[in-house]
């Protein structure tokens, strides 16, 4: 059973130098309050694995930093592994100008599978995506193989200390249901970290989420925060 705690208590679990995954796609499905609270702790030198850097202040639906953007704006990230960082100019600024942020770009479908591979006990992913491109030079690319005449890249599994998950409803057994397009990277990330922290919009009684609608199983969840 997951522990139920406050966001302010849970953010203390994350220490300098940790590797964190943050679910969401441009903030949609990200644990929004958790990200904001983590930015207030001053924890630093984090490696961040996520689809993107969220919307920076002034660009997203709240007008404030949105999702992972809080941590980038606050210079808490030393390395970001992502698929697209063009929406948040703070990333290019910290990479090109300030040289404080390392950026590692991975194709979106590959990143999803690399995380899934880790969480599903697989040693890597063979994908045709990225063949003939700079992805072949990525530290996450372990080589190239030809299978039935087609070239594939072997991409490494990706693991984190913490997976930070946003969801719409979590029941008291930790089962998660995702509304709309919020499931995105959350589903795979919840399988690929030592500690999984879920921030739901709403906590409901067991039974309110039908068993067949559970997308992240309570057995994977360590903390539910409110």
């Amino acid at each position, binding site marked *: 059973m997951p522990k139920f705690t406050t966001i302010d208590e849970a953010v203390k679990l994350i220490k300098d130098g940790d590797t964190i995954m943050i679910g969401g*796609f*441009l*903030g*949609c*499905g990200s644990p929004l309050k958790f990200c904001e609270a983590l930015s207030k702790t001053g924890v630093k030198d984090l490696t961040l694995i996520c*689809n*993107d850097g969220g*919307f920076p202040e002034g660009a*997203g*639906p709240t007008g404030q930093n949105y999702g992972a953007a809080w941590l980038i704006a606050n210079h808490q990230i030393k390395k970001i592994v*992502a*698929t*697209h*960082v*063009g*929406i948040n100019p703070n990333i*290019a600024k910290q*990479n*090109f100008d300030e040289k404080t942020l390392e*950026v590692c*770009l991975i*194709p*979106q*479908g*590959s990143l*999803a*599978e690399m995380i*899934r591979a880790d969480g599903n006990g697989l040693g890597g992913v063979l*994908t*045709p*995506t*990225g*063949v*003939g*491109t*700079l*992805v072949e030079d990525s530290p996450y690319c372990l080589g190239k193989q030809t299978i039935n005449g087609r070239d594939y890249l072997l991409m490494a599994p990706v693991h984190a200390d913490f997976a930070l998950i946003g969801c*719409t409803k979590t029941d008291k057994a930790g089962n998660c249901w*995702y*509304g*709309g*397009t*919020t*499931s*995105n*990277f*959350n*589903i*795979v990330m919840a399988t690929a970290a030592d500690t999984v922290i879920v921030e739901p919009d709403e906590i409901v009684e067991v039974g309110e989420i039908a068993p067949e609608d559970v*997308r992240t199983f309570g057995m994977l969840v360590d903390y539910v925060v409110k």
Partner: protein
Amino acid sequence: MDKSEIKGFIAKRVAKELHDGDVVNLGIGLPTLVPNYLPEGVHVTLQAENGTVGAAAAGQYQPEDKFHIVNAGGQPSGIIPGGSFIDSATSFGLIRGGHVAATILGGLEVDQEGSLSNWIIPGKMMPGMGGAMDLLVGAKLVIVAMEHTAKGNPKILKKCTLPYTAVNCVHMIITEMGVMKVTDKGLELVEINPEFTVEQVQAATEAELIISPNLKSMID
């Protein structure tokens, strides 16, 4: 044609390549205009890589919930009746697995070998590939829809100079000047906008064009 007319003109021509029932992924910008121009009787299902099969087309929905339903640009979106929401791994499984009939996207450079560059300008800009690399290798039909030149400079080259998004993946290039198919022998100009001559199209193109013996007008 002014800029806004050019985009609509290209989108309208792209729309003719789609078939009723196709599952289609549209890139950001110009490609999102394509559904507005679908021929009568042609209905396509839009796949948005962030997690929707049956995404509402731009302008065809009332955004109700900006926090829970977004498109691949992170903007509030909607879903059509019969659509489904999926996670990222499933979404890219559909894409790589060949279940998406067509992808339409823009480019910084495209070359006569059908290779495309659109994700990074080393030392200047590195927005990232997002889902583009997966879409280019997975979609059955890849259409690059873009303006023919950038500030007067050719974008259709013999060989891309920027890092590739994917190699030998583009089937067709549609611009305001013409329609080009990628063939084993090079780029074949199959349709031309009658506002331009073949010489003008070639002058705006670094790659050497093969002029189709059946060269048609882009306009019906």
